């Protein structure tokens, strides 16, 4: 009954509504900040932001009221590591934009122009409560995949929340393969790349810096990408001993300076320590570990390094020799050791099944009841798929929780969102209510009745 009320209130909209003041009342509210759910809470959305959430919340006059009794209300899911929006069909379906197998560039690649907000993958995940995603490029010819973005899944043509948020590099088995066949080769390529970046950075500061002497008018259109400022102008010379293109070296300058996060994919315990060890030589690197399937073996040292982790949630197979110690308790054990852990979909259907993150989070909660296993509290599990990934990239004050001032990415669920049987009933992104229909729902409606009609199915839509 309640669902049908909400349905008539909210779901009828075919196109996104404009942001307005909305009060969602009576639901079980989970803030996504690690706290446990609050029964009978209220969430107020105003001007696309969270105005307030919790109990004893004043409802502004004139707010549109949504009765969420019997429902759960949470921040939208933030897909912690993905290739969402870069591939409509992964295999033999034409061009995908997650990597360039034979392109000349690596670190310089910026995924942003590859994101297609019209991909059905965006709509399907949005209708299942995923509102933002961390999107990383895949590596191809270089150990550096390029620069990733944070996107929103809104039904509009502007998917980029923030471009060039991080650089992505492979330093484990995949990195070794890309680097010509060994991990040591990957490491020396990494060090050489940072050397080239340092050299470039020394020769020419960013356009915005005071060190810059002259500014060519032609530079101005590209000032918004500080990396490219080093490509032109006076003093942009390089030594002859280089392997990287100028674009690639320039892209690594902000990484070297700690102004852009460096996401490093490694799985095995020793690789994790090697990556943490890079901080000795490059103290300003803002390293984030991605994968870390064997993290539990060295959890104390990850915690001591204060390097955050975006981990696969339920990897438990020795899928290769860098994941021999895989266990579903990895996340719980790292968390217990004090590591900042978010959940991502690392090489796990990362272009499309981001909606599984809430299932995985629920599976981590379930481990609490398995003797010898390390589970995660419910509130923390939700945080791992909402605020924690945002915090890893320094965007925790923007997205990922229902805290006052955050972007209003809000989902009303039929029940506990970590239960696979629950579904998203209403989705707001930046306070804008989103359509819930997808190619899939339309196919379902077309074929739910197979009786012969006066016209073929092709006329039914």
């Amino acid at each position, binding site marked *: 009954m309640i669902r049908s009320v909400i349905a008539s209130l909210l779901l009828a909209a075919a196109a996104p509504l404009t942001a307005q003041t909305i009060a969602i009342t009576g639901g079980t509210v989970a803030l996504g900040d690690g706290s446990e759910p609050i029964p009978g809470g209220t969430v107020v959305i105003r001007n696309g932001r969270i105005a307030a959430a919790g109990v004893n919340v004043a409802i502004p006059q004139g707010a549109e009221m949504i009765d969420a009794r019997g429902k759960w209300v949470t921040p939208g899911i933030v897909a912690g590591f993905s290739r969402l929006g870069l591939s409509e069909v992964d295999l033999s*379906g034409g061009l995908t934009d997650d990597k360039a197998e034979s392109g000349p560039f690596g670190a310089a690649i910026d995924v942003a122009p590859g994101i297609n907000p019209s991909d059905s993958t965006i709509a399907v995940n949005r209708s299942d409560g995923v509102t933002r995603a961390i999107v990383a490029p895949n590596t191809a010819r270089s150990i550096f995949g390029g620069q990733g973005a944070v996107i929103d899944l809104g039904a509009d043509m502007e998917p980029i929340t923030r471009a060039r948020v991080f650089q992505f590099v492979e330093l484990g088995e995949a990195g070794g393969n890309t680097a010509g066949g060994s991990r040591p080769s990957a490491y020396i390529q990494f060090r050489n790349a940072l050397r080239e970046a340092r050299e470039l950075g020394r020769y020419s500061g960013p356009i915005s810096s005071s060190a810059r002497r002259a500014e060519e008018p032609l530079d101005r259109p590209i000032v918004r990408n500080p990396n490219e400022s080093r490509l032109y102008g006076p003093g942009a010379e390089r030594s002859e001993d280089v392997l990287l293109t100028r674009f690639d070296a320039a892209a690594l300058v902000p990484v070297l300076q700690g102004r852009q996060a460096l996401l490093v994919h490694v799985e095995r315990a020793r690789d994790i320590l090697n990556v943490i060890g890079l901080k000795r030589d490059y103290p300003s690197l803002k390293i984030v570990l991605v994968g870390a399937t064997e993290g539990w073996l060295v959890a104390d040292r990850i915690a001591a390094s204060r390097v955050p982790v975006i981990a696969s949630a339920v990897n438990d197979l020795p899928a290769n020799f860098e994941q*021999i*110690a895989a266990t579903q308790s990895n996340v719980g054990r790292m968390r217990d050791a004090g590591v900042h852990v978010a959940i991502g979909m690392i090489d796990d259907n990362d272009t499309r*099944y981001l909606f599984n993150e809430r299932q995985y989070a629920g599976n981590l909660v379930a481990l609490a009841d398995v003797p010898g296993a390390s589970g995660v509290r419910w509130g923390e599990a939700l945080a791992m798929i909402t605020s924690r990934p945002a915090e890893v990239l320094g965007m925790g004050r923007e997205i990922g929780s229902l805290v006052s001032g955050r972007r209003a990415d809000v989902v009303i669920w039929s029940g506990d969102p970590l239960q696979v*049987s629950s579904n998203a009933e209403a989705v707001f992104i930046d306070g804008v209510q989103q359509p819930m229909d997808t190619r899939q729902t339309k196919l*379902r409606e077309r074929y739910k009745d197979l009786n012969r009609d006066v016209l073929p199915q092709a006329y039914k839509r």
Partner: protein
Amino acid sequence: MVALALGACAATPPPKKAAPVPINLDPYPSTYHRYPGAVTAIRGATVFDGEGGRIENGTVVLADGVIQAIGGPDIPVPEGAYQVDGTGKFVTPGIIDVHSHLGDYPSPGVPALSDGNEATSPVRPEVWAEHSVWPQDPGFSRALMNGGVTALQILPGSANLFGGRSVTLKNVPARTVQGMKFPGAPYGLKMACGENPKRVYGSKSQMPQTRMGNIAVDRATWIKAQAYKRKWDKYNKNGGDMPERDLAMDTLMGVLNGQILVHNHCYRADEMAIMIDMSKEFGYKITAFHHAVEAYKIADLLAENGICAAMWADWWGFKMEAYDGIKENIPLVDHAGACAIVHSDDPNGIQRLNQEAAKALADGRRMGFNISDEHAWTWLSFNPAKALGIAEKTGSLKQGKMADVVLWNANPFSTYARPERVWIDGALMYFSGNPRLRPVSDFELGQPGEGDVK
């Protein structure tokens, strides 16, 4: 009549033909024997019997490897039986995965262990998956401990139109694949439609390069199989010189004789309809379509032809032929009265088949179908058992059937549920409360994480 009369009157009788020699149809026989199990009574649990029945406060008695009794709280429990308190917990038949590559694409997934596709010709019915299965694949134990999987079919991959024979296993650790083989289970033949065969061979400029090429090669192969069968039928009836054996044709003859079940990888509705016609053209039966993401478009046709559809809950779009996958596929097939199966095709997915069924169940209910939990469990045990030809022996909790049983610590359609105990043929093969009852494969022995919770 005339010919017979003439023959009888001939002066010199023709030389007497040698009697037909039977071919050994089971040259790699199962050596599986159930492990010892205590007489066990699970009491007070909610029971899904696997055929759509539900018992509250139920009692299930396991003895001598079989379900000795199942019923309510008043069922008599044998004296001295080991009693398990099932209060607040759930008992189901063990999950049966009709589509797995454990052992032939094992962990670790290194080239040396990649044994799932004999991609050297689109027609390879002569290969048998059991000859690739590595019993030390750690994936088997994950499927047992985290998934509650007690039996599974291992299939060759889908690079080929005719991929080879499948094998059905009990999910019990063993030194040899024979030690895992499900006694008496029929063989299956893996066939594949669509993109994979035409991609694999088309890219080598070989036939098939198109879907029409797929079908032409299929039909030409069945024509050969029919001729082969005629030769052998004649020999088996009249004796004489034994025809030359052809391993590939042996498998296809087994299909035409109804001894080997056809498991057909096929995504698209239009292709499934063509495969159904092909089966009629050559006189065989398709037991199940696997990965049938468009089954919902022809659910009526599947029901009419008695063909099961083995499906994922929500996979779609990873390739073009999966583009029209929808989340209601399983409940729509079920609603049409066809046989719906939840399958994995994945060493991770096999650990969460109950959750995949839970998704499909919830999606079905949301579109208004009245599906009970206990009915949905048929997608996980009884229907796959039917598709594997083992439903007389396992797949439901009926008196006298194999005691392949899971005790879940909560409703198994909850994301928070985990297997607490798993029995196979009445032997306790996993108990979450006993670290000694966690199987560790040879591969994992002496490695970091040996014997850990997984």
